[in-house]
């Protein structure tokens, strides 16, 4: 255990999944031709004024709800004034005084110990434009300018880098599942800053705060906090003092690097945005948003366990939202859910990855899926056979039974039938039987091959093998 207590706070920006930008009706899109998704508002043209996207408020309410925040019922916006080329008006419209959500929490599970990570506030604001830095100039693409963001700020209540990681995973899962954001850190639709200070005792004042900006992945948040803790510990041990500063994580160096030492504090000259009158959040708005919130990840995991899935399958299924949504429509069915989860996470996932399809894009309707699961549960279909017919199952409309029949692989699971065939093969191959009995293990493989040949591969191999062994050993 370290002799210092870390205090960690996390700020997350997520881009909201809307059709249009927050203050203009140009498209909110990613990866399009430079400056093709803008209008005069996004470019900060003289005379332009903001309008406010309804969906941004709805998603704000949704996020606030799932993060257990109180929702502000009367909001205004504020201007944050700073000059920067990526900031077209040289002020950013944000919520400084009346954030849409406040006093919330997210519950994490750290190896069986539950802990609430408290959220100070979450506010709505606009994104900046994208700058590309060349040697001799900086190029500006305003497609991102005005994309709606929410910034979620925790209280300084996170105690370990692991907790920080768990918090971010949980946050990402919640916002992704509620369609607030697609939370792609690699595309910048989710961005995290962490700040950390160390002190010796709980009763001491907080130590000097260091902020680590724009960390590219959740695992790097944990890693950078660990590195930063180690760096600060060493300095504190040596009685070295340091100033409040901003650092970044360099994944090549695998360490944090100084960006700038904090000066007297930025002077953002906040004042209320006069162009956007008070926004009222009504009961009706909150109620209609709440209706759109699907079953949340924690509840899903619990439900899956209840239905007999293994812990690992439950977890994995929730990690794949498409498949989780798919199975959620079958929760009332009487099927073997563990088998269903195996199927979805195994062969079906493999097929989907290979073909780059979503499950909804295949012909595997809920009814056919139920048939498939049942055919496996009652051993009509072996996993080998499933592999053979999978592409038909996923691409054709005919019933599972028909596919099994037409593929001529009526899987023989009837042990009497298998025994009969095995006996025939033993009788027809006395040499191989005696080879086996003399210790030549290869002989059993030959016999098994004969069984398969006889049944044209239609026998369940594990059942056949065990019957064959039984017969030879006795």
């Amino acid at each position, binding site marked *: 255990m370290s002799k210092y207590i870390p205090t960690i706070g996390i700020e997350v920006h997520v881009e909201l999944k809307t059709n249009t930008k927050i203050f203009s009706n140009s498209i909110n899109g990613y990866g399009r031709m*430079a400056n093709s998704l803008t209008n005069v508002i996004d470019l900060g043209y003289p005379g332009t004024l903001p309008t406010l*996207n309804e969906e941004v408020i709805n998603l704000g309410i949704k996020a606030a709800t799932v993060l257990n925040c109180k929702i502000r019922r009367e909001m*205004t916006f504020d201007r944050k004034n700073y000059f920067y080329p990526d900031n077209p008006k040289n002020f950013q419209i944000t919520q400084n005084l009346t954030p849409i959500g406040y006093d919330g929490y997210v519950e994490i599970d750290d190896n069986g110990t539950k802990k609430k990570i408290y959220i100070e506030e979450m506010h709505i604001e606009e994104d900046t434009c994208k700058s590309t830095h060349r040697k001799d100039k900086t190029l*500006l693409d305003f497609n991102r300018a005005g994309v709606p963001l929410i910034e979620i700020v925790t209280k300084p209540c996170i105690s370990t880098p692991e907790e920080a990681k768990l918090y971010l995973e949980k946050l990402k899962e919640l916002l992704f599942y509620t369609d607030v954001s697609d939370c792609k850190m690699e595309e910048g639709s989710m961005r995290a800053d962490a700040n950390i200070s160390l002190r010796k005792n709980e009763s001491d004042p907080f130590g000097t705060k260091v902020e680590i900006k724009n960390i590219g992945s959740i695992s790097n948040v944990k890693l950078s906090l660990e590195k930063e803790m180690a760096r600060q510990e060493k300095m504190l041990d040596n009685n070295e003092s340091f100033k409040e500063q901003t650092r970044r994580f360099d994944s090549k160096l695998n360490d944090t690097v100084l960006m700038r030492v904090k000066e007297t504090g930025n002077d953002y000259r906040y004042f209320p945005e006069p162009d956007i009158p008070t926004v009222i959040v009504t009961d009706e708005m909150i109620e209609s948003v709440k209706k759109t919130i699907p079953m949340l990840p924690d509840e899903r995991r619990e439900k899956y366990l209840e239905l007999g899935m293994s812990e690992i399958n439950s977890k994995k299924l929730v990690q794949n939202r498409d498949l989780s949504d798919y199975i959620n429509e079958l929760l009332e069915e009487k099927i073997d859910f563990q088998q269903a989860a195996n199927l979805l996470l195994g062969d079906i996932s493999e097929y989907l990855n290979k073909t780059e399809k979503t499950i909804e894009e295949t012909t595997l309707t809920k009814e056919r899926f139920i048939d498939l699961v049942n055919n496996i549960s009652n051993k009509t279909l072996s996993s080998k056979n499933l592999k053979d017919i999978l592409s038909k199952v996923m691409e054709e409309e005919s019933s599972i039974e028909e596919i099994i029949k037409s593929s001529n692989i009526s899987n023989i699971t009837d042990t009497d039938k298998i025994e009969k065939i095995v006996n025939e093969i033993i009788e027809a191959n006395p040499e191989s039987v005696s080879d086996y009995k003399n210790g030549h293990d290869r002989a059993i493989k030959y016999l098994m091959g004969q069984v398969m040949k006889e049944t044209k591969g239609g026998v369940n191999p594990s059942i056949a093998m065990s019957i064959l062994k039984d017969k030879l050993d006795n």
Partner: protein
Amino acid sequence: MKEKLTREEVLHVADLARIDVTEEEIEKYQVELKQLLNDIEKVNDVEGYDDDMMVAPWDDNTTLREDVPGEMLDPKKVVENAPKHTGNYIAVPVVITENESEGA
């Protein structure tokens, strides 16, 4: 009441406003800005008002816009008015380092 701002005060506001000032102008602004600020100082003598604030004489609360895309500009039009551009991008002098980006 002092009649001049200090040089530093003038330089600070000029920096906030991103306006370059010459030596001569600094001296001029030391006096002129101070005069305006002395006028403004009078609000501190006002009494009897309540705490309610009025940001603007708004008649209604905000009516939210439907999330439906509208017309956008041709990228060519975007760069047409810009003093400098490279292809579809608007160009500015190099911004010191990527790390400096304040972002949102």
